[in-house]
């Protein structure tokens, strides 16, 4: 079991209200990702759940039990830190065994659990090494190993992949998702990388300035963002925002069009743009355009599109996939 409930949770550091008030429900077995720009309070929120920070107000419940005043170890959670936080003076074996030793388990039981975890994480050959003798990815796996042997009711991940290079990040992302399917344990994952959020999450919590902007499945957030912030944050490349006459003609203050919802043509279209930068990725092409009367627009199309710096390109937004926002930036539903 591993359901987590936040009721009215707030956090104040001195004068700064980092988290004004948050209510959130995390169901057992869910993979929940907290995502937002740096300084939005996502790590603080995770640390409040972990018990590494004291709440300034509100309640935290784990499996229905109030743990607001409990010490981190009493909450039955395991955490993987951004810096891995491995014990540098212990071997991999002892790092993984540490929480079990603290729990005063039998030596035979500890050995078995460590061996099992090492096998799952491909660390069997490295058990006698020190963390300093491992690569970044291996260290990350040790940190995960240390977390899984405890069989916690939930895992907390604090930007665990941000110290890894791009290729390794991709691999580790798959490994963590795979682990979630095997263990079926609740995972709460903090990241500023919306690609990680989109690919891994069952449920994404978008945070901004300590407030929850929207909670929903990745595709929910992609298809129906509740406001300009979520619309701009989820999706890559970013959604284009168009004000002025075009938006007014759609009865909105701002119109939002995702780069992949613009039809490109070399002959005709609603708007005319000049290519500023063309990014040819092979599988798709990103065009950054200067559009007459509108401004900077990014467009994306599948496969190759033969346009280069200075070329004229015509664009037509796909009206069915248009997003409309009012004066306050909230989404208007048709």
């Amino acid at each position, binding site marked *: 079991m591993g359901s987590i409930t936040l009721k009215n949770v707030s956090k104040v550091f001195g004068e700064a209200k980092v988290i004004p008030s948050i209510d959130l429900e995390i169901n057992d077995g869910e993979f929940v990702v907290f995502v937002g720009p740096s300084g939005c309070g996502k790590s603080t929120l995770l640390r409040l759940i972990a018990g590494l920070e004291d709440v300034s107000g509100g309640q935290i419940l784990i499996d229905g039990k109030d743990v607001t005043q409990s010490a981190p170890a009493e909450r039955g959670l395991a955490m993987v*830190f951004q810096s891995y936080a491995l014990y540098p003076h212990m071997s991999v074996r002892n790092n993984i065994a*540490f929480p079990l030793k603290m729990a005063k388990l039998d030596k035979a039981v500890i050995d078995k659990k460590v061996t099992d975890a090492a096998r799952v994480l491909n660390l069997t050959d490295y058990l006698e090494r020190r963390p300093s003798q491992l690569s970044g990815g291996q260290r990350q796996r040790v940190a995960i190993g240390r977390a899984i042997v405890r069989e916690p009711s939930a895992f907390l991940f604090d930007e665990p992949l941000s110290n890894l290079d791009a290729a390794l990040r991709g691999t580790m992302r798959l490994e963590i998702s795979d682990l979630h399917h095997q263990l079926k344990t609740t995972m709460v994952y903090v990241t500023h990388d919306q690609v990680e959020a989109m690919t891994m999450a069952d449920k994404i919590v978008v945070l901004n300035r300590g407030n929850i902007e929207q909670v929903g499945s990745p595709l929910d957030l992609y298809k129906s963002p509740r406001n300009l912030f979520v619309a701009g944050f989820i999706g890559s490349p970013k959604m284009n925002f168009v004000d002025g006459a075009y938006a007014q003609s759609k009865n909105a203050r701002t119109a939002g069009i995702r780069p992949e919802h613009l039809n490109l043509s070399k002959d005709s279209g609603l708007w005319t743009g000049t290519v500023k930068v063309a990014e040819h990725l092979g599988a798709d092409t990103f065009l950054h355009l200067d559009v007459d009367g509108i401004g900077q627009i990014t467009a994306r199309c599948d496969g190759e599109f033969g346009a280069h710096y200075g070329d004229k390109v015509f664009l037509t937004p796909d009206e069915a996939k248009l997003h409309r926002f009012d004066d306050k930036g909230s989404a208007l539903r048709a």
Partner: protein
Amino acid sequence: MARNVTTRHKVTATVAAWVVALIIFFPILYTLITSLKTEPEAIAGFSLIPSGTFENYVTVQTQRDYFKPFMNSVVLAVGSTILALIIAIPSAWAMAFSPTKRTKDILMWMLSTKMMPAVAVLVPIYLMFRDFGLLDTRIGLTVMLTLINLPIVVWMLYTYFREIPGEILEAARMDGAGLWQEIVYVLTPMAVPGIASTLLLNIILAWNEAFWTIRLTTTNAAPLTAFIASFSSPQGLFWAKLSAASTMAIAPILILGWFSQKQLVRGLTFGAVK
């Protein structure tokens, strides 16, 4: 082409390093050479070839007992170091792990006491020592050496403790370690290298301290620094015997330094964890 440049670089760097090392080491070497000369040879002028006599060492030992100042040096150096660590570990710990707004000021204030020339407080300290009956006592001098080196010890330890990442302590807390287990299994093993090198460096500093040890002692608590100084006496200067005494005085600390150089260098240049 590139390879030539790096080879030349390496040769130049190696030669330069040896030259600098030799210049730094030369006074010690020349002391050793002079100690193996006769007195007339010693005052005759610069020469690197001694007659190889051990007479000076015998004279030094028969004229004055080496063992007593040696023991005083050991007691003072070790005693003041232990005392300094007992005070410095908790204070550096507190400042590193729960700093306040004033922490930086306190550290700076402690360091500023090292900026004052010792001679400026010689008279008041001498008078205090006299009035409290501490002149020429091991206790008095141990306290004095502790106070002199305390700022350095606190600074060194503070720097080491600061490098222990907070996330590791949080990880231990998540893993179920209580405060005591956190200290025993996680903090202490990570802090030991730093404490060890601070200890070694402080022993060396205390061993070599000459200003106060010479001025606040006569015979009973006089360490090896006073032992050396006694050879430049009113009876005249005896370069060869002085050199022999110096060699005997620095030999123990040189040996200690040699065996612990790895720890010293590591402690002075390397953080607690990486």
